[in-house]
C-alpha cells in the first residue's frame, strides 16, 4: 500500500513511466493472492491456531544415546552417559602454515632458494649454503669430505647346461590281445620257474639249450620255421586249382538220380598219384578214423616176379597233389592198418614176411618196430594185419596172417616187438612138428583176415583154396567153423559192421557172397564178370556194399533196394588198369579205389547209392525174406 503511495506522488512528473509502473504494481498486487502448493497439509482452523512450542537445545540429536562399553572391573557392559555432543556440519582443511613453525620455516627457505636460483652460483657462497644447511654443523676450515667408490666388477653371465639324459622314443599299442599274449607268456614263465625250483640239475641243461637256441637264432632268416605256414599255403593253392572238385565233393548231389530209377553213379573227384610210385601198384588202403580226410596207401606189387621196393604214403583230401607222409620200405607193402584210437600208429605187412610199425609223429623214415630181427617172423608174404585192443599191460598189439599159414599176434613191448603165436591154418592131412607148446602145421595160405566189430575174439580167415575159417582167439588149436566159399583165392572177407552174424567174401572166381555165420551156404551170391579183388561194406548202411574187379569197374549194391543187381557198375579207370582196393570213407560219401598203376582215385557216391535204411536193421529183413 505504501508502495502505491510513493508511486502516486511521483505521478505528476513521470506520467508515462509511472503509469507503466503503476500498472505493473497493480498487476503485481493483484497477483499477490495466496497460492497453495499441492502437497500442503490440509488442516482445520482449530489445528491451524494451535500453538506449538519449539525449544532449542544444545544437545546433538544425532549423537548416539546407547553407547555401551565393557568394563573389565565388573565384567559386564556398562552404558556410557557422557557422549560427545558435537555435530560437525562442515569441515574444510586450510592450507595456511604458521610462519614460525618448522614447516613454515622450511617453506620460507625453499622460497628464498628459488629466488636465488636465477643468479650464478659462486663458490664463496659457502657461508650462505652453510647457513641453509643448519642441521649439519661442520668445521669450516678443516673439513674434508671424501668419497670413494668401490670397484664394480664387470657383470658376467655364467650359465651351465647339464647333459640331457638319454632319450628314446617308445611307442606301443595296448590291445586286448596284446594283454592276453602277455599274460599267457607270464603264466608259462611262472610254470617254468616252478619246474626250475623242483629240479636241480636243470641249470646245465638250460645252458645247453641256450646254446642251441643261440645257434638257431644266428641262422637268422631260417625259413624252416615256415613249415606249417608253407603247408597251409600249399593247401590253399591246391584248393584253388581243384576248386571245382572241392565244390563237387562238398555240395554236388546228382539231381538226375531221381529219374534214373534205382541206379546211381559215381562222380570222379581227385586222383592221387606220386611220381616216384609209378612202377608200383596199390596193395592196401586205409582211412584214418580220427582225421577223416587222411588215408594211407600201401604200394607194392602183387606179382611174384616183379618184386622191388615198396612205399607207404599218406594223402589228405586237402592236398591232392603231394602226399603228406612218405615212407620207403625195403620190400613191397602188402597190407596196412591204422590203429583205431592212436591214429599215428600204422602197422604194415611186407612181402618178405616182415611186419613193421610206423609212428607218424616221428620224423624219421624208419619204422619204430620192425620184425626183421626177431625170431618167429613170417616166412612168406604178410597178407593182412589188424590192430587189436591193448592187452592187460596196455601194450599195443596186432595180429597178422600170412601166406605161410600162420596167424601171429605181435605185441609192442617198449623197444622190441614180440611174437605170440596164435594159430595156424591147417590142412586136414599133414604132419606136425611141435614147437613151444604150439602145433606147427604146414598149413594153408591165408589171404584175408577180419575181426568182428563187437566180439573181437571172433575172426574170419580166408585162404587161397577158397575156404573161409571162422576162429576165436581163445581156441588156438581148432577152428570153430569152415565155409566152402569160393573155388579160387578168397581175396577179402569182411564182417558186416551192423549185423552181428553177416559177413561178405569175394574171390577170384568172379563171385561175391554174403553169408550168415550160422548157415553153411551163402545167403546171397553175385557174379561179376571178372575176378573180384576187393569188397567193402558201407559205414552208413547195413545193406550197401561195393566191390572192385580187375576190369576196372566198381560195383555198388544195395540189398535193401535190389537183391539181384548192382545199382551201379561203372568203369572208373582207363583201359587195362586193374583195380585192387576199395575203401569207404567213414564220414564223407566218397570211396577211394587203388589201381595197379599206383594211382588212387576218389569217387563220390550219388544219392541213390547212399540211402540209409529207415527200419532198424534192414539186413535182417533182407535175409529173412525168402530169396533163394
Amino acid at each position, binding site marked *: 500500500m505504501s508502495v502505491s503511495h510513493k508511486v502516486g506522488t511521483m505521478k505528476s512528473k513521470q506520467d508515462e513511466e509511472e503509469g507503466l509502473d503503476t500498472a505493473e504494481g497493480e498487476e503485481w498486487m493483484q497477483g499477490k493472492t495466496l497460492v497453495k502448493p499441492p502437497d500442503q497439509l490440509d488442516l482445520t482452523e482449530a489445528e491451524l491456531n494451535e500453538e506449538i512450542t519449539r525449544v532449542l537445545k544444545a544437545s546433538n540429536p544425532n549423537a548416539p544415546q546407547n553407547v555401551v562399553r565393557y568394563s573389565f572391573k565388573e565384567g559386564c557392559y556398562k552404558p556410557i552417559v557422557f557422549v560427545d555432543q558435537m555435530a560437525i556440519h562442515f569441515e574444510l582443511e586450510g592450507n595456511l602454515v604458521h610462519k614460525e613453525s618448522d614447516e613454515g620455516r622450511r617453506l620460507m627457505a625453499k622460497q628464498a632458494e628459488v629466488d636465488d636460483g636465477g643468479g650464478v652460483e659462486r663458490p664463496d657462497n659457502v657461508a650462505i649454503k652453510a647457513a641453509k644447511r643448519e642441521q649439519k654443523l661442520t668445521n669450516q676450515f678443516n673439513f674434508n669430505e671424501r668419497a670413494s667408490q668401490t670397484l664394480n666388477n664387470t657383470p658376467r653371465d655364467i650359465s651351465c647346461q647339464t647333459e640331457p639324459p638319454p632319450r628314446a622314443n617308445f611307442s606301443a599299442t595296448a590291445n586286448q590281445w596284446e594283454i592276453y599274449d602277455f599274460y599267457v607268456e607270464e603264466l608259462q614263465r611262472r610254470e617254468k620257474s616252478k619246474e626250475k625250483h623242483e629240479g636241480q640239475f636243470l641249470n646245465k641243461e638250460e645252458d645247453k639249450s641256450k646254446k642251441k637256441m643261440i645257434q*638257431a637264432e644266428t641262422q637268422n632268416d631260417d625259413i624252416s620255421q*615256415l613249415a606249417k605256414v*608253407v603247408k*597251409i599255403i*600249399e593247401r590253399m593253392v591246391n584248393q584253388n586249382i581243384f576248386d571245382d572238385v572241392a565244390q563237387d565233393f562238398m555240395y554236388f548231389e546228382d539231381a538226375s538220380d531221381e529219374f534214373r530209377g534205382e541206379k546211381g553213379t559215381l562222380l570222379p573227384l581227385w586222383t592221387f598219384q606220386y611220381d616216384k610210385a609209378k612202377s608200383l601198384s596199390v596193395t592196401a588202403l586205409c582211412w584214418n578214423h580220427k582225421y577223416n580226410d587222411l588215408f594211407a596207401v600201401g604200394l607194392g606189387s602183387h606179382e611174384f616176379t616183379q618184386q622191388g621196393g615198396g612205399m607207404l604214403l599218406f594223402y589228405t583230401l586237402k592236398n591232392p597233389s*603231394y602226399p603228406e607222409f612218405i615212407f620207403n620200405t625195403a620190400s613191397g607193402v602188402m597190407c596196412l592198418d591204422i590203429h583205431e584210437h592212436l591214429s599215428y600208429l600204422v602197422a604194415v605187412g611186407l612181402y618178405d614176411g616182415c611186419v613193421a610199425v610206423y609212428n607218424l609223429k616221428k620224423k624219421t623214415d624208419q619204422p619204430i618196430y620192425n620184425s626183421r630181427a626177431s625170431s618167429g617172423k613170417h616166412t612168406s608174404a604178410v597178407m593182412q594185419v589188424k590192430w587189436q585192443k591193448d592187452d592187460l599191460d596196455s601194450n599195443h598189439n596186432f595180429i597178422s596172417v600170412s601166406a605161410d599159414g600162420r596167424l601171429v599176434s605181435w605185441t609192442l613191448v617198449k623197444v622190441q616187438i614180440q611174437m605170440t603165436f596164435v594159430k595156424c591154418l591147417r590142412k586136414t592131412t599133414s604132419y606136425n612138428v611141435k614147437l613151444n607148446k604150439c602145433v606147427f602145421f604146414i598149413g594153408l595160405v591165408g589171404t584175408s583176415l577180419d575181426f568182428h566189430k563187437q566180439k573181437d575174439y571172433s575172426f574170419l580167415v580166408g585162404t587161397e583154396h577158397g575156404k573161409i575159417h571162422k576162429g576165436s582167439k581163445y581156441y588156438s588149436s581148432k577152428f570153430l567153423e569152415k565155409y566152402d566159399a569160393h573155388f579160387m583165392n578168397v581175396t577179402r572177407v569182411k564182417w558186416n559192421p551192423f549185423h552181428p552174424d553177416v559177413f561178405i567174401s569175394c574171390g577170384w572166381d568172379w563171385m561175391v557172397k554174403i553169408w550168415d555165420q550160422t548157415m553153411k551156404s551163402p545167403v546171397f551170391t553175385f557174379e561179376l564178370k571178372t575176378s573180384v579183388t576187393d569188397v567193402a561194406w558201407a559205414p552208413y548202411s547195413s545193406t550197401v556194399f561195393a566191390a572192385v574187379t580187375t576190369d576196372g569197374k566198381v560195383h555198388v549194391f544195395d540189398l535193401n533196394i535190389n537183391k539181384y543187381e548192382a545199382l551201379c557198375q561203372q568203369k572208373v579207370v582207363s583201359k587195362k588198369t586193374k583195380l585192387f582196393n576199395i575203401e569207404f570213407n567213414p564220414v564223407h560219401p566218397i570211396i577211394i579205389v587203388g589201381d595197379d598203376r599206383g594211382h588212387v582215385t576218389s569217387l563220390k557216391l550219388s544219392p541213390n547209392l547212399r540211402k540209409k535204411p529207415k527200419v532198424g536193421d534192414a539186413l535182417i529183413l533182407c535175409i529173412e525174406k525168402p530169396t533163394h
Partner: protein
Amino acid sequence: MLDIECAGAEVEETIKRIQSQKGVQGIIIVNAEGIPIKSTLDNSSTVQYAGNVHQLLMKARGMVRDIDPQNDLTFLRVRSKKNEIMIAPDKDYFLIVIQNPTE
C-alpha cells in the same frame, strides 16, 4: 640240428612244388619287419607287395584278436579280378602267394 636242416630242406621243396603248381605267379617270403627275404618276382613288385601286405596283415590280425584274444589269424585270401593273393602269417614270417586260379 638235423631236424632243423631237414625241416629247411622240406620247406624249400614244398616252395618249389607250390611254384610249379598251375597258375602260381609268384611266392614271397617276408620276415617280421616287413623285409622280403625270398621272392620269385622282380624287386620292385616284391617290395610293393611286401609293404602293402604287411599293413593289411597287421590290421586283419588285430581285428581277429580284438574280437577274441584267444583266436588268431590262420590265413587271408584277397581275390581280385585278375588273380588271388594268399597270405599266411606265422609268428615271425609271412608268406605271400599270388595265383591266377582260372587259367
